[in-house]
């Protein structure tokens, strides 16, 4: 049996809506603001409407069930029921819409903001474009010493960073739950694997307060590490982060 056009249109809309929920809420576990879903569904509805009313014949077929309901004297009972339910539903919807919302205001921030060209670190003006990890070359030149430096970096990490970023570098340290925004997960392919070592150096040394405005520096609980760690300790801890997770830092060179 052929599905009536009107039902087809409704099914398409439901399919798109639940597909959206399935992909974003269930599979990706991302929280999508209701306002965005409403906007999205508005355009989808408009698109579906355009497709289904492409020519007059199709339009007539689409509205036929509605027309019949309103005009056909034999459908009086359904008509009366619909004519009572629709105003009540819309009225109720308006009532709920106007209830004040007590949900926390949405805070959008850039997690990996573009770095400045230069930054003042350890009292010096540093050009972040040219900055390189002074120890990275040892990886090829002197693997044994390189390994030693990584072990030193591990000790720095455990002493200073694991409380929030975790023993496993997964951003789930013992105090992670008490912080908002939550600490970064270095195991994730979307964090240090996408960044240069100089970027990490900048983020670690200048901490939350060193973030540009679009990254909401006032809420980040990342300490200003240049107040606590020496420069070489920061480079070593960066090497440890890459070594432990197995990620490679991004670099300008083609490898």
């Amino acid at each position, binding site marked *: 049996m052929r599905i009536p056009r009107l039902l087809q249109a409704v099914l398409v809309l439901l399919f798109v809506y639940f597909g959206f929920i399935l992909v974003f809420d269930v599979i990706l576990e991302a929280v999508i603001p209701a306002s965005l879903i409403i906007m999205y569904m508005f355009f989808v509805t408009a698109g579906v409407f355009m497709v289904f009313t492409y020519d007059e014949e199709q339009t007539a077929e689409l509205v036929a069930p509605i027309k019949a309901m309103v005009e056909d*004297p034999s459908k009086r009972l359904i*008509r009366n029921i619909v004519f009572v339910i629709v105003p009540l539903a819309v009225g109720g919807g308006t009532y709920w819409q*106007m209830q004040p919302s007590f949900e926390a205001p949405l805070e959008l921030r850039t997690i990996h903001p573009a770095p400045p060209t230069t930054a003042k670190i350890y009292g010096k003006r540093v050009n972040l474009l040219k900055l390189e990890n002074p120890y990275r070359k040892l990886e090829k030149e002197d693997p044994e010493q390189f390994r030693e430096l990584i072990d030193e970096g*591990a*000790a720095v990490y455990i002493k200073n960073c694991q*409380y929030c970023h975790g023993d496993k570098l997964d951003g789930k340290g013992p105090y992670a739950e008490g912080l*908002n925004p939550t600490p970064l997960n270095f195991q994730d392919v979307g964090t240090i694997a996408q960044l240069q070592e100089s970027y990490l150096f900048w983020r670690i040394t200048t901490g939350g307060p060193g973030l540009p405005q679009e990254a909401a520096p006032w809420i980040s609980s990342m300490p200003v590490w240049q107040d606590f760690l020496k420069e070489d300790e920061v480079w070593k801890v960066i090497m440890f982060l890459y070594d432990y997770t197995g990620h490679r830092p991004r670099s300008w060179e083609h490898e």
Partner: protein
Amino acid sequence: MESGMMKTIVMAAATAGLLALSPALAQAADAEKGEAVYQKRCLQCHGDEGDGLGPAADYLNPPPRDFTLGLYKFISSAFDADLPNDADLLRMINDGMPGTAMPGWSDILSETEIQDVIAYIKTFAELEGAPEGQVDFGTQVQSSPESIAAGDKLFHDGERCSECHGVAGKGDAVKKLKNDNGERTWPRNLTKPWTYRASADPKDIYTRISAGIPTTQMPSFADPKSKKKLSVEERWHVANYVAALAKTGKVVRPENTVIQASRVEGELPGSPDDAAWDLAPPSTFFMVPQIVGKERFFKTANDTVSVRALYNDAKVALHLEWDDRTKSIPGDDKAKSIADEDLGEDAIAVQLPTTIPAGMEKPYFLMGNSVKPVNLWRWSSGTTEAPESVAILDAMGINEQEARDATAAGLTAKGSYKDGTWRVVMTRPLTTEAVDKDLQFEEGRFVPIAFFAWDGSNSEVGTASAMTTWYWLLLKPSTGAKPMIAGIIVAILIGGLLFWWGRSAAARVASEGTSGGDA
């Protein structure tokens, strides 16, 4: 790459050969593999020698386990057996230890790897073989109101459990407890299930009661020589009672970031024990050690705070509730006997911006900065000489605060301590005269709010505190009749429209019918 593979194959073949030769050697091979895993994953905390003296040992609370002693706390072997079961170690590594820095490893280590690590860490104390006795579970008594009541009685009888765990189970100390290493330990606050190291399931609680917690002062109640010993059935009752205590805990819900203050008619409850506070829903937040600004502090005693709020046409009142095992009143002998080193006052502070932010930007969460200062409403528990007090601090950073007279702003506070819990009410007029220094509250506006707490018996003073990041306080506006009126108007309009549509359609059909038209 290929040579690496060859190596693996050769090693695997060699291992297989050894396995075939002798079981004892097979175990040694496992421990060897375990050592490699240990070197990468465990050494940083537990130390090269397995003595728990890794680089972070001094900063972890509780400290990492010392494997050289061969003693483990959360075991299921009998109280008089010297050895843990491998299954106990497996579980600690798999699931981790909630409330400590030990994470669960099951997501990145395979079971074989974990078994190898177990074989390796047992070599530190040369543990061999299996324990002789196991905890006798008898027949589990399912939880019921009767069983819980029986457990309640046994828990308190002759202060069997309440001596250390407190009358309300909050672990409020009556004496200093130490472990075998001489380190300070605290009895578990049984109302905080997220701090149970080995789950708050009755079966796990039963295991603790029966086996005790080796190296600590938690004894076995299965020990026939104990004056406080319990039968199998009695231990199940106590386990059910403790599990019930754990269920009533104020649990942190991550999505709950807004403290909603309801509007009340008449006076606000000024006493922290006023029954009116029970009607306001609490928002519970985790508190973490202040490890962000100088000086960092790592071992705080408080881990949560529950906040309620109410307001009327003139004032707003905040009700802060947090579990603190020690009532710290300097000058008090009992308080002094329990405190670590210097005894200071217990304190809590509410942090607010000086004005409600217009956009997204708030003051720096850690006590503001010179561009955007914050207000701290700080209550202190008082000493034997001075009563409890409250002050307003104008803060421009964690090390830059200026105290100001709270009475000028109309801020008052009152605290009460009972069975391991502090309750404090702070009340302030919605508006003050110092509009440039004090936040002026407005109905319906989201106000950033954060908290700091100090346990005076745990050497917490100044920057050594527990803290939260920003949350929200909202004075919930009364909605009035607007939504109802709008809903009714919309319903009438739509209804009228549909009615008109139906009528005109009917009229058209009728006219078409009379004119003989064919539809």
